[in-house]
């Protein structure tokens, strides 16, 4: 896992571009990340926090690609995020053991194929979930930062407000984990 190029299709591709590489149309830099890969490191977390999943949008041909070299460079970080997602995603029916299996035991390398089909199935499920939370997180980020304002005038302020609200929910009081 995390040894190949990552591609975001359709609207998610557009979102990532806006969040990290800037949209040429506006001639303004309204990015809040420096590179695309950084979006990948944050989006899955946001997806889980807001319990948002999304599927790839195949409607348009546009996509945003992250080169394999870049992915491999961040492989450790991405794996870490993957583990966190698997352990903390919201699913009341999911056993802790299964979570740990997904996070630590499964070997997601292509070279390894499973003799036990149920394991294979679960592996695929895990990877699918991760992708879906990633895309969901991308959507949430886009919504929170750009808020449907075509001028994108307050993007930084919105980002700040997003951070602030999260801080107030999570850090300001020593409360239980709050996920939306």
């Amino acid at each position, binding site marked *: 896992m995390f040894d190949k190029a990552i591609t975001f299709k359709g609207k998610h591709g557009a979102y990532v571009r806006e969040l990290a590489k800037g949209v040429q149309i506006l001639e303004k830099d309204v990015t809040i990340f420096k590179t695309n890969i950084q979006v990948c490191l944050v989006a899955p977390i946001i997806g889980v926090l807001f319990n948002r999943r999304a599927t790839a949008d195949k409607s348009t041909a546009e996509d945003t690609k992250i080169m394999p070299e870049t992915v491999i460079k961040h492989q450790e970080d991405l794996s870490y995020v993957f583990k*966190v997602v698997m352990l903390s995603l919201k699913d009341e029916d999911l056993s802790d053991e299964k979570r740990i299996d997904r996070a630590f*035991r499964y*070997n997601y390398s292509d070279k*390894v194929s499973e003799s036990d089909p149920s394991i294979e199935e679960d592996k695929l499920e895990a990877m699918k979930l991760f992708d879906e939370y990633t895309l969901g997180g991308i959507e949430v980020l886009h919504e929170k930062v750009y808020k449907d304002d075509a001028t994108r005038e307050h993007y930084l302020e919105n980002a700040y407000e997003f951070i602030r609200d999260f801080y107030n929910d999570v850090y300001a009081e020593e409360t239980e984990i709050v996920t939306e």
Partner: protein
Amino acid sequence: MLLKYMKLNNFRQYKGEQTIDFSTDKEKNITVILGDNTSGKTTFVQSFNWALYGQTDFITKKLLNMDIAVEMPVNSKREVSAELVFEHEENQYRLVRKVLYMKKSNGVVDAFGETKELSILDKIGKAKVVEADEIDNVINNILPKNLSGYFFFDGEKIEKISEKKDMKDAVKNLLGLQALESAAKHINPANVSTVGGKFRGAIQDSADGEFTRAKKAFEENIRKKEDLVKEKEILDEELQKCRESIEEARNEMAQYKNLDGLRKEEKKIKDYQNRAKEMIKSDKDMIKSRISSEAQSFFIRPLLEKSLKVLKREGDIHEGIPNLTSKSIEHILHRGYCLCGTKIEEGSEVYNHIKKEQSYVPPQSVGTAVRFFKRDSEKTLKHNNDFYQTVESYIKRIKEAEKDILAWDKDLAKIDEQLMSGEKADSVRRNFERLRLNAARTEGKIQEKINAIGRCEQAIEINNTIMERNMTANKRNQEIKRYLDYAQAIYTYLVKDYEIKETELRTALNTKVNDLFHAMYHGKRSVVINKDYTVELVVADEAHASYEMKLDESRGLETVKNFAFISGILEIAKDKIISKNVDLFDDEPEPQEVLYPLVMDAPFSNADEKHVSKISSVLPSVADQVIMVVMEKDWKYAQDTISNKVGKQYRIDKKSETESYIKGE
């Protein structure tokens, strides 16, 4: 002189016979004639000049109405006439002036002959016809031609009345000083073609011709000095004008001072703005960097807590076989037998079981992985995350800077406004410098003239001495010298007398002007006529008697001032006429109640509403009879103030360029 009526016939655009009766009422002494520009206002005022003196200021001299001139058949005659009836000192005068025009066979219309008639009806009804060549005298005694200009005014003259040159001429006229001036000129021993000059010419020359040489040099230098003095006067005037312009420019500049200061300020503010913009840019960048590097650990916290809980609940993670890696299993499967020695055949149950184990073995052993995970997670949780605070402080700073930039934009806009007008300041300043340069140059030239005049005077003196020396050489010369001395004394006396009378009159005029000025204009300003006939409005500050401020004049104020002059001069002119006619041998001259009219064209053209009503309020008192030709729009403002003093009202109805009619209202 009280005007009763004027009857015009075919006079310029007044086609046919038209009569205007003037109000002779003592109280309602104003006659108003309304007319717009080009309707014939000026023509009307000029008709008085023509009736009385046979002269007009028209550019085209033909008086016959154009329509008549075009319509009349060849070889026919048409008449232009003006009949003026007025009352003076209990007598009634009827003055008629006529010109006959004839159309020649070539179609050209020319004046044929001019006639004038004057008949006087005395208070008991006896009529007397004045002889044609006596008429001018009689009229001049009533209203001298050279003073008539102060009783018949057209609009332009009003504007110029207080200009230096016209003022000077007015005073001279009023004083009847031309005669004095001529006498002095005539005698002036210093000049060549005068009485004095003639005397000098009669002196016999000495044997060696020294006297003649000296006389020649003397006269040459006299002429040269005359020329130089004239040239200097011109330069003086130039300098005066230049100095006035310099003052104007200086005042203008004062408005625009601090241009440099503004520019510096603008630059400073722009620098601030740029720095602020730079800072905002870099702060935004910093925020991005922070987000890029710290957002993950910021957001991940709740998930880490949950993750660790999950791991804790599971207890000790099934380590699996320590250090058993996928590679190890591959090796075992490949070699075909287990650690315990059992054969492993591909596809067998043993094989499959070991294969299964492989999926539980990531490149790292699970326990290790978990241990690393826990360690990293706990580290993250422990780390005092100031991500939010940092972002907040950057955002706050950015907001402040943006606010500042907006405020500076406002400041820049203000400065810009001032600078724009400031560009004009540059040209004003350049003009100022140029004028200063001119003034300096002119001063230099004046100095040259003064020096040259000095040299001439020296030469005059020297040669005069030589001449005098030679003059006493014989008896005849001595006699002539005595005559010359007499001439000099008379000349000196005349000049002095002129100066005294001039000052007297100027002062009297000044007083009268101020009387009327203050009647119209309430305030601390007064009119001052200087020795050189420049006119100023000054403010006398009672607290500091020697401190006077010169003030700018608005156009309306200008008109008020000029009007004060008209009335001042008029009064003095009146006095002069009266005093001239007083019998010198009359021990107790009766106070003459002599009335005079004032005929004006458009006295208000440049005044505003406020000033119009001020002028209007004093109009009735300025002259005994006021005949006023005004434009409708100006009358609007005057009307309210003086309609109760209007005895008669007319309107000039302009039908075409060639036809106007005066209609009563």
